[in-house]
């Protein structure tokens, strides 16, 4: 078990060591340059964003006490001591939360249908017209880049207050986001079934219906479920601009300092989002497993 380490003579060792040191020095230089650039950007951004550490430090007590106030009822008792009083508006808030979920559902489904069409129309392997693909792609990009709450702001001006602008905003944003993912799925399919159908005389519609859709459906469904999960979070805050759901009530409670109401609604939203996350994860795993069996 007696190992001896063979050390080469100095003449051989010298160039090896030099190369090693040079390589390490080069990496270190690269790292330091990166760090310097980062620090400079950081300083610039601090000025741009009016960051004030002193203010932060002064008010940090405010932050913790804010959560303290969230945890207390108006009477001064801690919220858990009287859950009935804490959740006094449970019926009303449940209805609003239901509206939020329905907004997310209706928006996601509408968006998914449009994305389904758009995703095929901008796939390189199905559409040969570069012009059509370009136009569809840019449209999807615009739908995706403008945040849904900006659409909601515009739609509230057009459609008035209520859930409708919220649903439309979610639908448009979802179309953009899913359309891109769908087209990526479609571009990665196996083209043999499509060619088979084309060879036996099937038209474009039957090529897509029987050649492409069976291959992509489970993936599409999985992405749509994931998007639904994201949209539930998004829908909860669309109410901030007057587009319906629990956000309308939440922003009023925050602005008017109804602390225990704020915490009750936050608890409801967080629990709801977590339940949906868990369910959707399970569902997506099953969908993808289905894909593997097929």
């Amino acid at each position, binding site marked *: 078990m007696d190992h001896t380490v063979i050390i080469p003579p100095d003449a051989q060792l010298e160039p090896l060591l030099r190369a090693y040191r040079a390589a390490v020095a080069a990496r270190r230089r690269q790292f330091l340059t990166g760090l310097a650039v980062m620090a400079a950007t950081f300083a610039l951004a601090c000025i741009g964003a009016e960051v*004030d550490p002193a203010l932060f430090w002064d008010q940090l007590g405010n932050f913790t006490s804010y959560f303290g106030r969230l945890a207390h009822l108006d009477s001064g008792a801690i919220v858990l001591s009287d859950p009935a009083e804490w959740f006094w508006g449970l019926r009303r808030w449940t209805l609003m939360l239901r509206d939020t979920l329905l907004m997310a559902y209706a928006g996601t489904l509408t968006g998914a249908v449009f994305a389904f069409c758009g995703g095929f129309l901008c796939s390189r392997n199905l559409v040969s017209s570069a012009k059509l693909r370009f136009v569809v792609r840019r449209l999807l990009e615009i739908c995706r880049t403008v945040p849904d709450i900006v659409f909601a*702001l515009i739609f509230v001006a057009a459609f*008035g207050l209520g859930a409708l602008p919220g649903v439309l905003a979610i639908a448009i944003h979802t179309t953009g986001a899913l359309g891109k993912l769908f087209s990526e799925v479609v571009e990665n399919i196996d083209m043999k079934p499509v060619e088979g159908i084309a060879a036996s005389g099937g038209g474009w519609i039957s090529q897509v219906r029987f050649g492409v859709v069976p291959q992509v459906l489970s993936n599409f469904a999985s992405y749509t479920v994931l998007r639904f999960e994201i949209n539930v979070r998004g829908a909860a805050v669309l109410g901030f601009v007057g587009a319906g759901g629990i956000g309308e009530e939440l922003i009023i409670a925050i602005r008017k300092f109804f602390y225990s109401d704020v915490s009750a609604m936050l608890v409801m939203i967080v629990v709801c989002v977590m339940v949906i*996350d868990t369910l959707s994860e399970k569902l997506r795993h099953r969908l993808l497993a289905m894909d593997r069996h097929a």
Partner: protein
Amino acid sequence: MSGRSPLKAAFLADRERIALRHGALLDPGWRSRLGTLSIFGGGAALYVASFFLLDMSLSHLIGGFWRLTDIVGLMVPPTPGSWSRFYLYVGAIGQTLSIAFLGTLMAALLAVPMGFLAARNVVANRIVHLLARRSLDTIRSIDTLIWALIWINVVGLGPFAGVLAIMCSDFGAFGKLMSEAIETASHKPVEGILAAGGSRFSAIRFGVVPQVLPVFASQVLYYFESNTRSATIIGIVGAGGIGLQLSELIRVLEWQQAAFVILMVLVTVAAIDQVSQLLRGAIIGRRR
């Protein structure tokens, strides 16, 4: 038709036998059909029900569309109004980028220790690990806008509240990503270092960090991209940046300027996407 495609003609001639051979494929049976139908039927029913429950009517939709076309008509041509307004908007975009950058960076820095705490293979204690995971999940499920409202109560209106809001909501996401990256990292380098007599700290520094860092860095860049989008909207609740200007413009119905600001946001986001894609390529390429 069949003259053009001999394969189709052959298929049609042989149709009966093929149908017999692949009966299960052509007719999957009522049970599977019923399942599919009930899923689709249930989905569609819920969709229709949601329209009634949310008070959305067709007349409402059509009336709104007319007003929307009016608004879009008022948006062209997009113009900033005057040069001074233009500089104001450019400054606001700069502020938005600062908010996104600082929020992402600070969240990433804070998430590193948290990620190690929440990783199953670093901290063996189940309770610590579970607590860390759950609190990260809770933080993550509260939207950036809600965090912004909370921080506005603490540090007042302005971009600083926006930075803190983005930091908070991303902290949850980064912590989770980081802990997952650590859990999937190979254990062999760590064992090698421990076997050669390295301490636990050097095992993490030289065994885990080099594996995790490139993955994490590219994720952070990806989040920076998406945060420029979020940073454009947190101004709507008063947390600084271009969103503040945009919501003001929409509220006072200055549609031409609003359209200009939206276009500016689109261009900025596209530019940031390009830059971060380049950087991501450089990071992943260099370390490999």
